């Protein structure tokens, strides 16, 4: 069984890595990574806006942002993918490739979840930070930009990284609308071989595991180092001693 798996990897590593590129669209692990990096990068500004809207005192901003977050949290990602898949061509009047559909869905979905992370990060800061910034003469928006957000976002880095891991895992759902990514490539291999489904999907699972596990470990390490740094100079000598 192990020998079978090794042969499958040897025969298909290029398909798993980049899909049918350059003879077709970029796929495989490369497409998964590009989709998730772009997804989280575009979801991030959206999430900050949504978080600020939810924390705002204006109900006209607060209500739609809250509705968006609860709506996205309460509906399966698969449903949202199908919504975008059929609404997008309708609104734009042109056919949209699967990966663009998937990217838009990811931005919306991860943006809503990430906004909860950002909101928690802002609320976790002591209120004295905002008071002090205002007392120093900053306007609300300048206080947010120069005092609150830089601190909140640094503290939130591990959670943002965890959200990135979720994004990688969520790109697999692109398989349902035929987005050429890693899961799609594995299914192509499985359909060609037919007789070794266990080996093929085990390789797929282990690939995702290696990727996500290393990122989860990185997030845990970041969390520890931020906690150490925030604990202040008392623990500093301990760190040096190590």
């Amino acid at each position: 069984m192990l020998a079978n798996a090794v042969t499958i990897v040897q025969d298909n590593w290029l398909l798993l890595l980049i899909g049918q590129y350059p003879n077709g669209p970029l796929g495989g692990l490369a497409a998964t990574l590009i989709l998730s990096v772009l997804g989280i990068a575009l979801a991030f500004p959206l999430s900050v806006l949504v978080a600020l809207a939810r924390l705002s005192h204006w109900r006209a901003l607060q209500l739609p942002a809250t509705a968006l977050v609860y709506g996205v949290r309460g509906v399966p990602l698969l449903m949202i993918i199908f919504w975008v898949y059929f609404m997008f061509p309708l609104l734009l009047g042109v056919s949209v490739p699967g990966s663009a559909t998937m990217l838009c869905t990811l931005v919306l979905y991860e943006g809503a979840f990430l906004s909860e992370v950002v909101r928690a990060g802002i609320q976790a800061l002591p209120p004295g930070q905002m008071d002090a910034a205002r007392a120093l003469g900053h306007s609300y928006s300048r206080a947010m930009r120069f005092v609150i957000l830089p601190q909140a976002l640094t503290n939130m880095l591990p959670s943002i990284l965890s959200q990135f891991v979720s994004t990688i895992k969520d790109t697999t759902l692109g398989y349902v609308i035929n987005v050429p990514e890693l899961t799609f490539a594995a299914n192509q291999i499985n359909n060609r071989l037919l007789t070794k489904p266990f080996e093929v999907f085990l390789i797929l699972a282990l690939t995702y595991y290696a990727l996500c596990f290393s990122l989860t470990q990185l997030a845990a390490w970041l969390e520890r180092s931020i906690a150490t740094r925030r604990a202040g100079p008392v623990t500093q000598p301990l760190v040096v001693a190590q």
Partner: protein
Amino acid sequence: MKGFDLAALLLNPQFIAMLGHGLAMTFVVAIGSWLLAMSLAFVLLTIRLTGNRIAEACVAVYISYHRNVPTLVQLMLWYFGIASLLPDALQEWLGDHNAEAIFAIVALGLCQAAYFSEDLRSGLRSIGSGQAEAARALGHSYIGMMRFVLMPQALGNAMPALINHTVSLFKNSSLAMAIGVVELTHAVREVENESFRTFEVYLVATLMYLLCSLAIMAAGTLLGRRGQTAGAH
């Protein structure tokens, strides 16, 4: 595309029956895997509490695997991969008994058990050690201490996380469509193909999912409040 007409969908008994069956299957998959996940989570938690190094490492690997591999891939590994390794007689029996749904329940249940057991463990860890010592000093056995003193508090602490993960389990039941389970999302695609009323059928299904998820969240808030008042006495 036809004009918006919700009645054309809702007054058609065939489409309503299809959506109804889909929703019922969604509940079967979600509740089945929730029960499996919760019971397995307690087993995993117990193993972790025994203090046996090897057993603990096994549980850690189990949890790490299920949290770092996408749920869809776990479903595919079970349905396409592990199914093919089973003895022929068992494969045949499964084929006669809605194999897709059984594998979906097993895969989703095993996956969510990892999350539930982590929730319970952190709920248990956030209780001060004085509670356990006081319970033992009062003459409780280990089981009695767990049953009457620690677990009620741990469940209360873990409630928000457990509810969040119950909602995501419910949402993840839609992934079962990828291996051919005729649950709500699958039924939606079928109705869409027959009625061409894409917008209406997505709207109805989205509202169904949303209402169920919000109901779970609301139930969680209620339970959490009850837990808090119980703790205050």
